[in-house]
């Protein structure tokens, strides 16, 4: 049940991002200053922001940015993590030890601290946010894949492949990677929720996407100054983030149940 709700929420946000121009005819940068902070009306269903810009139009662009960051961060992090984790787990020895130490150091930075540190020195921008989230993000995937690869390399079919002389890359490609994919898919779905929250957090702190480009995080930050006179500035983007993240968490949880061997 929750899986279907999650799927519906995610599809809803994707539809919002794709069908945007048909849903809201307004330019997200166009300003109606006399109507600034106006609440929801038929013309502007989510109201106008502090500069009189249509919140729905900005929400649509923000959805694209959130999804773009989520997909970019997860696909790069998962790919890097898959390759490094599979090599570490399958080959073992000093390679595994070296990769393990690098992962230990990166894991010593809790949450988005490393991303904050990197964006702080590189400067705030969408590209730097993606880079910073990938630098901290691949480790989780690598650790997962490494653990699975360690288990898989002891299984008979993998040992049989090695025994008949299959090169390491082929054993990894044909036997280890397919074995770790279900767990990786679940982690990627949950990771996408994490990446979207992280991007919004960085933008909220002024370290992510820079105005006037709308991001859900920057929209929330702008709304903080108008809690009393225009609560819709905070409610709308926050609800959008929460629903998308909830949807991804529901889907991730559902996939875990469906893809786990016991399920």
């Amino acid at each position, binding site marked *: 049940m*929750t899986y279907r709700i999650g799927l519906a929420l995610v599809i809803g946000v994707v539809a919002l991002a794709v069908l945007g121009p048909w849903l809201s005819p307004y330019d997200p940068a166009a300003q109606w200053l006399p109507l600034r902070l106006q609440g929801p009306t038929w013309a502007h269903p989510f109201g106008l922001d502090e500069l009189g810009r249509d919140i729905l139009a900005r929400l649509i662009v923000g959805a694209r940015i959130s999804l773009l960051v989520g997909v970019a961060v997860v696909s790069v992090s998962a790919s890097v993590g898959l390759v490094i984790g599979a090599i570490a787990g399958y080959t073992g020895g000093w390679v595994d030890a070296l990769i393990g*130490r*690098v992962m*230990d*150091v990166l894991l*010593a*930075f*809790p*949450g*988005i*601290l*490393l991303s*904050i*540190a*990197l964006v*702080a*020195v*590189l*400067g705030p921008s969408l590209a730097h946010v993606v880079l910073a989230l990938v630098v901290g993000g691949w480790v989780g995937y690598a650790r997962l894949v490494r653990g699975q690869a360690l288990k898989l390399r002891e299984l008979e079919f993998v040992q049989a492949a090695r025994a008949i002389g299959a090169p390491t890359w082929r054993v990894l490609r044909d036997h280890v990677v397919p074995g770790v994919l279900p767990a990786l898919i679940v982690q990627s779905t949950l990771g996408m*929720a994490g990446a979207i*929250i992280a991007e*919004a*957090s960085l933008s*909220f*702190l*002024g*370290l992510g996407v820079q105005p006037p480009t709308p991001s859900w*995080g920057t929209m*929330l*930050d702008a*709304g*903080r100054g108008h*809690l*009393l006179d225009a*609560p819709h500035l*905070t*409610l709308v983007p*926050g*609800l959008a*983030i*929460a629903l998308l*993240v*909830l949807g991804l*968490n*529901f889907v991730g*949880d559902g996939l875990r149940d469906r893809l786990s061997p016991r399920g």
Partner: protein
Amino acid sequence: MTIPVILGVATLVFSLIHLVPGDPAQSMLGESAALGDVVELRARLGLDRPVMTQYVEYLSRAARGDLGTSFRYQTPVTKEIGARLARTAQLACAAMAIAMLIAIPLGTVAAVFRGRAIDQVAMTLSLVGVSLPNFWLGPLLAMVFAVGLGWLPVSGAGSLAHLVLPAITLGAALAAVLARLTRTSVIEELQELYVVAARARGLSWLRTVIRHALRNSLVPVVTVIGLQFGAVLTGTIITETIFAWPGLGRLLIQAIGFRDYPLVQGCILFIAVTYVGMNLLVDLAYGWLDPRIRVR
């Protein structure tokens, strides 16, 4: 294992200033700064020396507790961190206490009524809690309890009332994680034979759950509380920014805004080392709580 990790963390933090595009001294002073000022600041930061010399000096100073001088405040970085540490600790402890007060009863009730409506509601609530970003929950709580009802102050620090909203904002996600874990842990314990034995001796169901199952299931919960300390630490960065709470997280964000790189490096290093230290304590505590691990 801890010392090589701390050394790696310090190396990464040291290299941060070298990742600044262009000249860090110029970046700190601004584009219009006089060349003489830039050269002077570069010398003051030690950036005019070979990188290896800078690195060795950075490590040796950090090992002695010297994290450099803040560019904005012109005071030792450790002094600035020290002045705000108590506030962050206060907020983090309050958030963890609130999380436990919510999560342990909720998780236990969900486990006892496993599969029933109350369990599904509790677990859906916890998933909602995980999905609610603290940078939204914070303003929402402020909107209702500070702006709307006027019960609590909207920002700042000083009294217990100031602590309530930031602590709930910070503790909500942790409560959600802990509730799920408590549920799993209590379910496992309820299947143990000693629970059946306790029931056979005539103990009431409530007493069996609270005195026996819950008590034993708390070992992994306590461990995860320790491990979640990192999430709480980074959560303080956003929570302190929302509520203008004068702690370490807000100091870090302000330092980034002022391009005070020594202070940024100091805060990052301090938070990461605290987290590593906390993980070490959790490892040791785990062995102390569960004798089987000590034996292994």
